[in-house]
């Protein structure tokens, strides 16, 4: 039997160490019944995709506050495709300027959560959009 729990890798890419958001969201998702793997700080796109592969993740949650998202996100999406992880959903939280939002959607990042987003909205989004573990049997 496959565990029906949604598996989420929460990752903090880049050099930034401000991990309050990543850790609070990780706990909220865990309290909502998901299996959460927190990678810790300073993860390269390669490390994050490899963690998603190893952990059989349904969702990757990125926390980026530093402005490096337009470099990091496309690289992660490319690597996911290369590894055949087409149905892993990527969501991002952080400080994302308006002009970048359509560009992120275009590369397949549909869950974009700005400061002030209720934790429940993120939980609901992931529940609705993560691939179903039961159907994949």
């Amino acid at each position, binding site marked *: 039997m496959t565990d029906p729990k949604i598996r989420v890798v929460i990752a903090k890419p*880049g*050099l*930034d*160490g*401000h*991990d*309050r958001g990543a*850790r*609070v969201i*990780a*706990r*909220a998702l*865990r309290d909502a019944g998901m299996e*959460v793997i*927190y*990678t*810790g*700080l*300073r993860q*390269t796109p390669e490390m994050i995709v490899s963690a998603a592969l190893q952990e059989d993740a349904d969702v990757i949650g990125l926390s980026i506050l*530093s*402005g*490096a*998202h*337009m*470099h*990091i996100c496309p690289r992660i999406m490319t690597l996911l495709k290369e590894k055949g992880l087409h149905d892993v959903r990527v969501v991002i939280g952080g*400080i994302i*300027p*308006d*002009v970048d939002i359509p560009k992120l959607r275009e590369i397949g990042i549909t869950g974009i959560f*700005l*400061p*002030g987003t*209720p*934790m*429940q909205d993120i939980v609901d989004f992931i529940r609705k959009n993560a691939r179903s573990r039961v159907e994949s049997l």
Partner: protein
Amino acid sequence: MAFTTISGREIAPLYTPADIATLDYARDLADPGAFPYTRGIHPTGYSGKLWTMRQFAGFGTPEETNARYKQLLAAGGTGLSVAFDLPTLMGRDPDHELSLGEVGKCGVNVTSLADMEVLFDGIDLGAVTTSMTINSPASMLLAMYLVVAEKQGVSWNALSGTIQNDILKEFIAQKEYIYPPRPSMRLVTDTFAFCTERVPRWNSISVSGYHIREAGATAAQELAFTLRDGIEYVQYGIEAGLDVDTFAPRISFFFNAHSDFFEEIAKYRAARRIWAHVMRDRFKASNPRSWQLRFHTQTAGVSLTAQQPYNNVVRTALQAMAGVMGGTQSLHTNSLDEALSLPTAEGATLALRTQQIIAYETGVTAEADPLGGSYFVERLTADLEAEALAYFDAIDRMGGMVAAIERGYPQKEIAESAYRFQQAVERRDQVIVGVNEFVEDDDERIGTLYIDETAADRQMARLERVRAQRDSAAVARTLDALQEAGRSDANTMPALLDAVRAYATIGEMCDALRVVWGEYEEVPVI
């Protein structure tokens, strides 16, 4: 229903003389300027001298930031405060793999002396005071500043300013560390010893609660962990062979100004009282300047909202007022757009104007410690002091702050508080105007600062020029000497100054010591 602060403190609807029955004026408060300095360190408060209006700024290239500094000084700012980007903070050159997308984004990029020369071009280092928010590589940026002064012909005796240099709060909260705690502490005590002797008016550390609070700590935790960090630095300085009264007067502090007005004011008052006792009674310092806690304040970035951003001007003004009524020596007010981007020039100017209105129009500067004697504020001050002292006991029992950090104690305490706060927001027990109450469907948008990729390209180009033009034998020789100093007990500052003069880059200098000391990695816990 009782009011509860952001820190989870329940406030009674009325405080009376019974709440301060044990308070003794001469012992616990005293006039401003007298031990234990609860009411302030200056006898005349702000009527003698206003606080320094020091706006933290930095973005993109040194050229762009230099222009912003000149604008802030022209607008009446009275000190500079440098925000560095993440590659600089983490000791990486712009062409390192991890610097991808980060150059010039969160602050200005400074890779070598060549950048520092541009950053302060046309600014007389003998005439301004400069604060630099830099921690792991603090001694390297200080060395760059000292060499720029040398080139301007300004004596090091005339330099005044601060390096943050507070590595303990990096392990606790902001997580911008390079080396493990113990060699990191050695870099800090090297700067204490060097500055005491060679740069006597320089504040060699700014022990910071700001980031601890931003990471989710309560007011009491901010107070406790910050001051306990201060104790750790003094202890290490003494163990490194320094006389406490030679370096303690150059220790300064940095606190948050959050939204709970009275609790914040009480926090600053408690901080002064605790520190005076710690320095006199625990460390037997005899110079009154060692007893006096001086501090910088910044309004709470974490309280700013992306929704209805104009509300942030009001939040910041009220928080700044708490810092002023708590007797801060210098102040940074955040800009309204900081939940969205780094501040625009207009946002930064409005933030400075906010301070000027408080200083010149409200009259709160006329009286030192205007809330002294309030039943409520005195009771809060005493409660915060007691809570901090309880944390001191717990940390002392663990063997000090470095040992407490190594077992993850303050980190876990803060993570718990952060999660509790977020749950209170979700339940709407904690109201945030425009976020979970009084919400508008279509928030007004404001102009924001967008930092493009040309900053990274320009920094990369300068780095290539520097590498091509410098004497590479001198670079190799000075980096070897730095590594040697790292292996021995010698002070690392002279070796760093030589490496800086040879235009060694921050990545090269940090790598030289990474080889000797290794890198710190935190065990990730939720």
